[in-house]
């Protein structure tokens, strides 16, 4: 196991610019082991951009990212994934041509090793591996209650189901760090409750550290260990849910304040 003192995830001084537009300005974030840290902030504040920087999809101009003390800055997404960082996507990026099971099996990709020869010949190793991983994936199907749709093509599923498969694919990677980009957007109360149940169970049973981007303040304040508030590419507050709730800067960002109106 990792030393418990090392933070699971540490982003240090991340600055990201697209041309003349500064998206993130010297942003630092630390996620302790087994913590749930929520990122909140108005639309366009840079939450998804920060996540994209952490997972290697964007390359920030400055700053470093470390995972359990290992520097992963500048690595491509597929290398960062190998450090057991998994994520879901705001716009659900599933593999539409495949079934739920195949999408989940793809999450197991880096835990498998068969190549085009053994796979194409359905040889002992590849076959055993497929069957072994199939069992791992079936456990996930149970956990996420996807039994009835396991063979359905994901393109035919409802929005809520697709969100769940997206989470399943990330979980199949057996991550140490899980980044959830608006996992509850567009869901009804019941679906949100399910999702929260899944997240809490994960944190408890699998010892996963979670970064959560979410707009539902009720959920955020209930389940987060720490909350970080991003506005115009900068953190304006960070702390326990209660501290953040009463922070004047946060209230100003969300509902506006006297100063803003005056200027």
């Amino acid at each position, binding site marked *: 196991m990792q030393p418990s003192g090392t933070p699971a995830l540490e982003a240090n001084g991340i600055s990201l610019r697209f041309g003349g537009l500064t998206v993130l300005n010297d942003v630092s974030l630390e996620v302790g082991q087994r913590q749930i840290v929520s990122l909140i902030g108005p639309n366009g504040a840079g939450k998804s951009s920060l996540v994209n920087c952490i997972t290697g999809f964007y390359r920030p101009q400055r700053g470093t990212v470390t995972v359990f003390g290992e520097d992963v800055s500048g690595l491509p997404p597929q290398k960062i994934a190998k450090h057991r960082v998994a994520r879901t996507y705001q716009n659900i990026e599933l593999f539409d041509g495949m079934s739920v099971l195949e999408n989940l099996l793809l999450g197991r990709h880096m835990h498998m090793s068969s*190549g085009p020869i053994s796979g194409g010949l359905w040889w002992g190793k590849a076959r055993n591996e497929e069957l072994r991983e199939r069992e791992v994936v079936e456990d996930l199907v149970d956990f996420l209650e996807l039994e009835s749709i396991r063979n359905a093509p994901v393109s035919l599923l409802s929005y809520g189901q697709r969100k769940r498969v997206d989470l399943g694919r990330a979980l199949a990677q057996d991550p140490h760090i899980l980044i959830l980009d608006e996992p509850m957007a567009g869901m009804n109360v019941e679906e949100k409750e399910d999702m929260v149940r899944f997240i809490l169970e994960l944190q408890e049973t699998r010892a996963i550290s979670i970064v959560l981007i979410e707009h539902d303040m009720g959920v955020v304040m209930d389940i987060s260990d720490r909350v970080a508030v991003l506005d115009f590419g900068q953190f304006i507050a960070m702390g326990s849910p209660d501290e953040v709730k009463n922070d004047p800067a946060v209230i100003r960002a969300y509902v506006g304040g006297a100063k803003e109106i005056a200027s």
Partner: protein
Amino acid sequence: MPLIAMETGRFDENHRQQVRVYDTPHRRFWILTLLVVGFVIVPFAANQYWLTVLGLIGVAAVGGLGLNVLVGYTGQISLGHAAFAAVGAYSCGIMTTRLGLPVWLAIPAALLCAGLFSLIFGVVSLRVKGMYLAIATLAAQYLVEWALHAWNLAGNDYGLITFEPIEIGAFNTATPVGRYLLIMACLALVVLYVENLTRTRTGRAMIAVRDQDMAAAGIGVSPFKYKLIAFFISSSIAGLSGVLYGFSAGIVSAEAFTLTLSIQYLAIILVGGLGTVPGAVLGAAFITMLPIVLRDGLPIIGIELAANMQVHLLSVLFGIAILAFLFLESKGLYGLFRNIKDYFRQWPFSY
């Protein structure tokens, strides 16, 4: 009522039963029938003409399956597959006829050559997609056509190279039956290979790259690596198609591997059904049979056409067929077959 009952009452007891390709007894029965007809009955019953036609379909099907790995499963386009087939055919021809290497060594080596050659163009796929990749692979086409003429690889000015028949005991590809069996055996192996590939790790990663290359990277699949693997596998299979063509024709020239063939491969998988194994075979049969039906079928219904008209009409029909499939049934012949099957599965209660 076999049609209605064929998929009910299935209770898989373990994962091994679940991942079987031919899962129902019904399907296994048809596959077995197909194998028996293909390998036992046809060689005895068919005359030389039909053996040759079926052989041509087989060669086209192998090429189509090869291109399907790249286009249908990995979502990368190639207009240069005739060139990769040519590399396969010429490597094999040169190694066996001119260097005197044994066939069992020359064929795998030829496939390796075709695969490695295609990697040059696979590297391009890191930077360019779609239309631009198509143009880049078109370069392969012209490069190979030019090289065959200019470098005199075959030892004569026409780029002609002969293939000595393979002879193992009673099996001899100098006979029509021998050629037919060689092609069909290779086709069966390629079908099995592609079918297995696409249900295991590597194939899934390719499909992931096709569907969502960014998300593929996010789960640890390197899109570039799998594009290269797809190029290699796809072109090796195309190379095999070239080799088979060589053995069935006995002699090949550069004219056999022009851009037209590359486009024919694309037509095969478009008409048959992108990203499906049976689709490539059905498409190959369709594209190969079209001119034959046109030539032999039209006189039967009383339409006599001049030879040059036939050629033109063929191009027109070719175009119409592709357009029709793109507009009406984007999943191709195999999609059509599945729709019909689904209809009858629920018939007469389609609700």
